């Protein structure tokens, strides 16, 4: 069904971020005076966002399917018009629905989780602002606007990670996150600028994509731009080697982690890949669009490396949030790799499903930690399945989805990626994806087991969390159960690709398989194997630590993992210390020996000259002149001082006299 005219929401989607932004400002300034301290306003704006996004989704789905761009001229310079506007297409709608729904659930959750927090109102204000920025990003019609949303999100992330800034370690984590993403954001700016010039002075997304597809952009510039943009993706979406900030970012409050570092902000990089996919595809020769099926490209390589190393790291974490964060990094790797092998729909679908299930897992972890007052898997948790039934079930659903157990959503999306990789000829990456599944199954089972089975090792008396905490978890669990069926080729359902995939994708990229084939089965088997192996290891006590006790290579491996591949150590030693010690030492030497001596020499000669000058010129000539002038000034001053007699009449007289004088002059001069 196609409509002749775009729906009203399609024409004005900017209302969505606007309501959130306004709400954020109001909460920031007046929140403390409101009865629920700002939370009610935040939740209201989020609810409105959900409603409006749903409306937009309906309009999009029932509409013509042509992306709607609405722009106005923002500013001009020279001949170039830079517009500002909105772009509504399947991707926008999907992201908006995702962001608004999860934001709403997280905010509801936070009313209880952050109940007695010292900066409750501020938390809600920044959370709302963040949502506004993310909404703005996904509906941007040009890359310049995207930069704006991107940066504001980075700011909100920084503010929220450092939410409890009284503890120094939180501050360090926030700084680390901010600086790492900021460094990679340089890539974004450079990329945007390069593409601007490459595309004939246009920031417009649609234009960029069309030009890229038609080979209208010179390849060198395109590659430069794409590389720069990819650097930004690596930083923002925590890919190797810029992934180190994400686990540290877990210092912030759990609901924030659920929203920002699992579901939304970190997927901004992936979103960029999706939005400007033709640019990347042409630049790196990806898939069908890039006319190179099966070749290596940096995107797929980095994505795949990330999958594996992060998954391995998740095995050795003690803190539940750290496990989940590494899991996020790994799954983001899946998404990036998906785009790297040309599986657009699969990648986007995985983004969608992962957002819900990761948010669910985080909220579940928060629920547990709230009750046991701690995050340590081994020390605080265990045996919670009886005392926290709702949390247990929802967390189990989330874990199963993540591992990829049919018929949950995670299975469908991950299977899609794997299958598509193969279909496009990227066999190596297909294997990596399967390895990733195995590892994911392993660490998630470990995590789940340590939390909910066995004996309770902590010191608290666990009980189920209140409704405001469990309801969002339940909602997300339901979503996790259902949304997988949006795209299940084996069952003949292709709603997601129909609604979201952009028009320029060739059919092959969309994924057109309707049979249960080898990949499907292999995926399931591997997931099951992973779960089984992990379960055995856990219940029979073969955990990574006991393994390490028995074999040296395992011990070395464990050491490597515990120290996070020594990457942090490397960064610290090489980059920070290199600069601090090497460079500054050199600078100091130059400063002290060369420059200081020079300055001293100059100083001494100046003093000598000065003394001479003082003796015969200064005292002899200048002083006399100055004294003379002073005397003259003094005397003339006292003489002229009489003018200011204070007598108003005299002033008037003088004025009149002057006027008369001038009048006489003028008359005479005629």
């Amino acid at each position, binding site marked *: 069904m196609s409509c002749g005219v775009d729906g009203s929401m399609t024409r004005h989607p900017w209302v969505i971020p606007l309501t959130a932004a306004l709400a954020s400002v109001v909460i920031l300034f007046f929140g403390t005076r409101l009865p629920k301290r700002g939370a009610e306003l935040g939740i209201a704006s989020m609810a409105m966002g959900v409603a409006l996004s749903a409306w937009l989704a309906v309009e999009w789905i029932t509409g013509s399917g042509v992306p709607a761009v609405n722009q106005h001229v923002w500013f001009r310079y020279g001949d170039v018009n830079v517009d500002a506007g909105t772009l509504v297409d399947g991707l926008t709608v999907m992201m908006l629905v995702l962001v608004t729904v999860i934001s709403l659930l997280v905010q509801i959750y936070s009313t209880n989780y952050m109940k007695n927090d010292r900066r409750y109102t501020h938390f809600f204000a920044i959370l709302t602002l963040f949502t506004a920025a993310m909404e703005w990003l996904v509906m941007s019609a040009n890359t310049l606007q995207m930069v704006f949303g991107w940066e504001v999100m980075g700011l909100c992330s920084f503010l929220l990670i450092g939410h409890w800034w009284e503890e120094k370690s939180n501050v360090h984590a926030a700084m680390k996150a901010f600086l790492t993403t900021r460094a990679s954001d340089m890539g974004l700016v450079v990329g945007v600028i390069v593409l601007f010039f490459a595309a004939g002075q246009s920031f417009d997304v649609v234009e960029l994509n069309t030009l890229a597809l038609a080979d209208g952009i010179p390849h060198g510039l395109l590659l430069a731009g794409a590389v720069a943009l990819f650097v930004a993706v690596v930083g923002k979406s925590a890919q190797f080697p810029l992934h180190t900030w994400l686990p540290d970012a877990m210092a912030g409050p759990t609901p924030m982690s659920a929203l920002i570092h699992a579901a939304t902000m970190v997927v901004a990089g992936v979103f960029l890949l999706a939005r400007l996919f033709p640019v990347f595809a042409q630049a790196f020769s990806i898939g069908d669009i890039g006319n190179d099926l099966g070749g290596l490209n940096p995107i797929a390589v980095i994505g795949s490396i990330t999958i594996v190393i992060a998954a391995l790291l998740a095995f050795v974490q003690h803190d539940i949030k750290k496990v989940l964060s590494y899991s996020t990094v790994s799954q983001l790797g899946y998404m990036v790799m998906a785009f790297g092998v040309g599986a657009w729909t699969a990648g986007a679908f995985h983004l969608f499903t992962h957002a819900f299930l990761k948010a669910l897992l985080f909220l579940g972890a928060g629920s547990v930690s709230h009750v046991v007052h701690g995050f340590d898997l081994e020390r605080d948790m265990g045996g919670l399945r009886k005392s926290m039934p709702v949390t247990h079930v929802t967390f189990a659903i989330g874990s199963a989805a993540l591992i990829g157990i049919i018929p949950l959503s995670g299975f469908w999306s991950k299977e899609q990626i794997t299958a598509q990789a193969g279909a496009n000829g990227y066999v190596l990456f297909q294997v990596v994806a399967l390895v990733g599944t195995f590892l994911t199954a392993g660490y998630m089972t470990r995590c789940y087991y340590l939390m909910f089975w066995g004996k309770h090792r902590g010191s608290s008396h666990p009980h189920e969390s209140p409704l405001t905490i469990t309801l969002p978890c339940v909602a997300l669990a339901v979503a996790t159960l259902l949304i997988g069926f949006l795209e299940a080729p084996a069952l003949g359902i292709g709603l997601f690709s129909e609604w979201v995939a952009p028009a320029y994708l060739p059919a092959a990229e969309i994924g057109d398989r309707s049979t249960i084939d080898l990949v499907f089965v292999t995926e399931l088997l591997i997931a099951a194997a992973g779960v089984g192996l992990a379960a055995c290891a856990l219940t029979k006590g073969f955990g990574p630590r006991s393994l390490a006790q028995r074999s040296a290579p395992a011990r070395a491996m464990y050491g490597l993992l515990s120290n996070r591949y020594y990457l942090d150590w490397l960064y610290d030693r090489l980059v920070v210390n290199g600069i601090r010690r090497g460079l500054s030492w050199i600078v100091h030497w130059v400063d002290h020996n060369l420059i200081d001596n020079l300055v001293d020499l100059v100083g001494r000669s100046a003093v000598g000259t000065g003394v001479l000058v003082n003796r015969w010129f200064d005292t002899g000539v200048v002083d006399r002149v100055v004294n003379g002038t002073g005397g003259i000034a003094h005397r003339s001053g006292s003489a002229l001082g009489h003018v200011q007699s204070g007598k108003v*009449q*005299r002033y008037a*007289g003088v004025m*009149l*006299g002057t*006027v*008369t*004088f001038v*009048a*006489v002059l*003028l*008359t005479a001069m*005629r």
Partner: protein
Amino acid sequence: MEAAFTILSLLVIVAAWRVVTTQNVVRAALALVVVLAGMAPLFIMLAAEFVAVIQVLVYVGAVVVLFLFGIMLTRSPTDVPEDPDNRRRWPGLIVAVGLFGALWFSLTDAFGNTSVDPKRVSDTADVGSNLLRENVIAFEAVSVLLLAALIGAIVLARQD
């Protein structure tokens, strides 16, 4: 007409001279009354009856009364007739004469031949309409000014 003008002008000039030279303040005020009152017929001769009436009403009627009150309230009790002039008598004279010379020469030069129609008929309606049309803003402004001055004078001069 000419005769009337000559008499009136002489009267006015003499009275003005008295205003600025007499030692007694009260005499000066009375001379001022003569000046102001003498101006009114001059206005009438120039076909400005309305202004002449206003001149009498406002100047002679109100301003002079104000002056008399002012004099009354600021008289020193000893009432010694002191020299009313200060040291600037001669400079003042020079300035005044100089100014007069300049004015006279310029005026005669510029307007030497212009004449005023003695039978001219005045039109007060014209004045009124001009006041309320072209210059209505000034009119309103002056009203506000009067109010401000009224309040200002009261505030300044009250004893509390």
